């Protein structure tokens, strides 16, 4: 049987011309760039990413199986947007903000073409108005609030470009689409607003980040601190600890809101967060950690085109909370999967490939994304921040590849994960010689005020560690026994720094989170021991005598102590006693 092409319809309605994986070419669409379109009879959501003549190229956020040429396409005329309002916290969404729990009501498997709003249309929230009739308000001003979770006040803001005088406003019980306030010009304000994800939400001014984001992870806070509103990259080969580090930050960072994006990674890791977070308590608020968290999941087996959407959806939600004056921390695990999605789409478009097949715009996309982090002055004069922490999964563990390199150019904190450390179960497997933080000078003055000596301590630790590195090169040539005693001591002290201080077990009840004060005390103990140890060497004591002192293993166990203040005093006293005895022995 032969058919001629005339069996295809010839009217001027938008129709599918070609389907190749997530890329669909549509004829006669008459759309604009980034318009959201509904493709085929199942109305699969997609986005216009290129226009050429009467053909528009669309990337579809869902599986395109059985989509055919000639199927109808509908243009929504609006770009991909998210719903912002009460109900975001504790939610888990897919990459285009569909609530996964509601999708799960139908089937444990994700079906295509589901259209469920991100924010419940039924749930009523108690809105408390803080402005009155006759007040003039402008974009970014709060008109009231909803207590969204036990300890979280969700401010209801005037959308960025609206302004006017309030004609009507009332407190009460409302759904997210009910009008809670009307301006003189007739604009109705609801608890919910929409925002196109690819456009950053406006703010008044950007400020330099100067407050440390306390993470409770010793190597980060003490050696490579991140600032609120800053950016960090965590590159590392598989199994080196990207996900655990990100999850540790999501758990313990002293932010008000956490946005956690699982971008092209394992399904079970999202389940893990979903199971664990409601059980864990936020040390700051006393509420379950889930109460301050929004999860976005586009797992590795979910459609590739939605990877990019997941990242933008997440950052837009983060900016929204920032605009209320909150400190938000966003984790994206892993940005490499997003980059690979770009590469895949780009190659389907037969664009000229750049380095390793990635599109030429890889660098600018990454830069734009990290640029949406920052500490800002909001439109209403408040202050908020978005901190962005991106995991990078370099192929073959090679940091010279394009995603790692382009990320490092735009992020200011670099936590380099190291397979060698991970293999010996030194966790977090962050390489202390390669990592850096460019926020150090900004954030340490405040730390120094609360913890005198913080900066000197930090420098001494770094010196020890790099001295160890030099010495171990010599050991490679002559063996450890050939080193003079003081150098052997240096190796032993730096071992203490590594094993007692830097190593931190994310799975230990107590060790998983280490308050700044405890970090400070631990460093002090190690350095006190160290000072005494060198003095002892000068007094011709032997390394082995010093190593055998009972205070040494006591320092090792400090990390597991909940009541660290009391323990620290005990160890401190023991160090004094140990060395007094040692020195006393000399005098006898």
């Amino acid at each position: 049987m032969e058919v001629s092409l005339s069996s295809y319809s010839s009217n001027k309605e938008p129709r599918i011309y070609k389907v190749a994986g997530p890329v669909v070419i549509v004829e006669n669409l008459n759309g604009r760039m980034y318009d959201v379109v509904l493709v085929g009879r199942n109305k699969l959501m997609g986005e216009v990413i290129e226009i050429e003549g009467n053909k528009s190229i669309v990337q579809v956020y869902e599986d395109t199986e059985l989509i055919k040429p000639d199927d109808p396409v509908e243009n929504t005329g609006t770009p991909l947007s998210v719903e912002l309002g009460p109900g975001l916290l504790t939610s888990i969404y897919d990459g285009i903000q569909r609530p996964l729990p509601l999708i799960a009501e139908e089937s444990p498997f994700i079906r295509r073409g589901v259209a469920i709003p991100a924010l419940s249309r039924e749930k009523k929230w108690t809105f408390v108005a803080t402005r009155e009739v006759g007040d003039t308000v402008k974009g970014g001003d709060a008109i009231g609030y909803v207590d969204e979770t036990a300890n979280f006040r969700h401010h209801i803001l005037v959308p960025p470009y609206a302004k006017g005088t309030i004609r009507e406003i009332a407190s009460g019980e409302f759904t997210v689409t009910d009008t809670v306030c009307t301006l003189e010009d007739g604009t109705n304000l609801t608890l919910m607003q929409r925002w196109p994800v690819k456009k950053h939400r406006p703010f008044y001014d950007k400020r330099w980040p100067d407050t440390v984001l306390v993470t409770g992870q010793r190597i980060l806070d003490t050696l490579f601190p991140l600032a609120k509103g800053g950016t960090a990259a965590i590159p590392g080969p598989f199994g080196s600890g990207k996900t655990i580090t990100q999850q540790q930050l999501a758990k313990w960072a002293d932010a008000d809101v956490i946005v956690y994006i699982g971008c092209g990674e394992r399904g079970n890791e999202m389940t893990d967060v979903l199971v664990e977070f409601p059980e864990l308590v936020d040390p700051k608020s006393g509420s379950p950690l889930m109460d301050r968290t929004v999860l976005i999941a586009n797992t590795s087996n979910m459609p590739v085109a939605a990877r990019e959407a997941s990242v933008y959806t997440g950052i837009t939600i983060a900016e929204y909370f920032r605009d209320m004056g909150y400190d938000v921390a966003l984790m994206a695990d892993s940005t490499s999967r997003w980059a690979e999605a770009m590469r895949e789409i780009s190659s389907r478009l037969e664009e000229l490939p750049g380095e390793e097949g990635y599109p030429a715009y890889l660098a600018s996309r990454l830069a734009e994304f990290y640029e949406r982090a920052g500490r800002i002055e909001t439109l209403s004069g408040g202050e908020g921040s978005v901190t962005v922490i991106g995991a990078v999964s370099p192929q073959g563990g090679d940091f010279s590849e394009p995603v790692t390199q382009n990320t490092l150019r735009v992020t200011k904190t670099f936590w380099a994960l190291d397979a060698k450390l991970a293999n010996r179960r030194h966790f977090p497997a962050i390489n202390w010689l390669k990592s850096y933080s460019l926020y150090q000078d900004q954030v340490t003055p405040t730390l120094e005020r609360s913890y005198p000596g913080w900066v000197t301590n930090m420098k001494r630790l770094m010196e020890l560690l790099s001295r160890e590195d030099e010495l171990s090169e010599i050991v490679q040539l002559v063996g450890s026994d050939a080193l003079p005693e003081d150098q052997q001591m240096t190796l032993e002290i730096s071992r203490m720094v590594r094993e007692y201080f830097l190593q931190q077990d994310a799975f230990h009840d107590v060790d998983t989170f280490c308050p700044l004060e405890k970090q400070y005390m631990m460093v002090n103990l190690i350095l006190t021991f160290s000072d005494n140890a060198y003095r002892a060497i000068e007094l011709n004591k032997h390394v082995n005598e010093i190593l055998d002192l009972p205070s040494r293993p006591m320092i090792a166990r400090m990390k597991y102590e909940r009541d660290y203040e009391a323990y620290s005093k005990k160890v401190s006293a023991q160090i004094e006693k140990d060395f007094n005895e040692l020195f006393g022995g000399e005098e006898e």
Partner: protein
Amino acid sequence: MKEYKTINKIAGPLLFVEKTEPVGYKEFVTVTLSNGETKRGQVLETSKDYVIVQVFEDTQGIDKQTYVHFSGEIIQMPVSGKMLGRVLSGIGTPLDGGRKIIPEDKRDIQGEVINPYSRTLPDEFIQTGISTIDGMNTLVRGQKLPLFSGSGLPHNEIALQIARQATVTGEEESFAVVFCAIGITQEEAKQFINEFERTGALQRGVVFLNLASDPSIERIITPRMALTTAEFLAFDYGYHVLTILTDMTNYCEALLEIGAAREEVPGRRGYPGYLYTDLASIYERAGLIKDKSGSVTQLPILTMPGDDKTHPVPDLSGYITEGQIFVSRNLYRKNVYPPIDVLPSLSRLMNSGIGKGKTRADHKALSDQLYAGYAEGLDLRGLATIVGKDALTSRDQRLLLFADTFEKRFVMQGRDENRSIETTLELGWDILSTLPEDELTRIPGDILEAHYRRETAEDEGD
């Protein structure tokens, strides 16, 4: 019916078909040669001008006279509880001379994406009887844990030992094995089948065989058929299914072939840029689902070309699976069986499967300390070859000895030696106690107090 005789171009496994009515992306295709022979395929790309069909068998005999039939459906396979005990080809036709399988249902072989919200976190300890796995890289039910191996290494023996010995303590439940051969040799396949027959595992197993001599392009669907069967047995029948997929490297070679035929821009080392996504669509088909009693546990095997773990196949696999077990040529040469190198090995789900009430409270600390000690011992072994043993401090000499003892007593075990988890953990403490107590900084004090053997340490110290 949509049937055409308009093939315009044939390139490798790809057919370019013109002048069709609208054909759906991923539609299932049958191709009928002039001699009546049929082959199967799938739509890779569809447009108003042409349709690209990927044929799953070799394209020998296909010419422009060949009929191409588009089914209007995606590829589905018949599934049935009666598949247990059967040996099927790489595309699901019976090879055992047995009867045709009467389908209870038909399933999309691509599988469906499990909603992360509907997953249950795997946390049930599977005892494999192998110390390096149970003690240090614990397997849990519903995990995807591959063996990263090299050609000529005994990965098959290890996989078989796991399949034979795997038990979940305190439970008598329905187990099933799905074995999927992807491009392996006849002898290797025989090794598995004979063993399954010998142990009776075949009666509660399904075998899919795509051998080295079978068309490579079939390999694209063989693992998907195996996993569709595994999911059916797990989620419809409630079986705990162990799925062995071997060799995933052959699967990736087949993908490479298609990519080349399509003249795609290749990603790293010639493999398609979507290799990660494609592998994820296989490996992610493991786990547990809320309110369903069965589970799919995956044990893929892959051989690393040139033993190189940065090669795209092991590299991308490692990024998707929940850990990996490294089979080491070095240990194999030293006659250590099983030659499992624990250092680069990892079980990401270990922490949820061990500990009090599951294995033992001291399990994690013990494992961490064994890792630390062995890693340091190996470093020193390297150092000792340069500077000589005598140039090491006494502490270092002990660690050196520790690494040897660890390999000889903990790693090494018999092919039929099925160690209980208690045996494994006690063995661990035996070995750790050769090191001074103060050195064991990875172990919290109370655990050390309860398990450390001071007598051993004193003997060593002498």
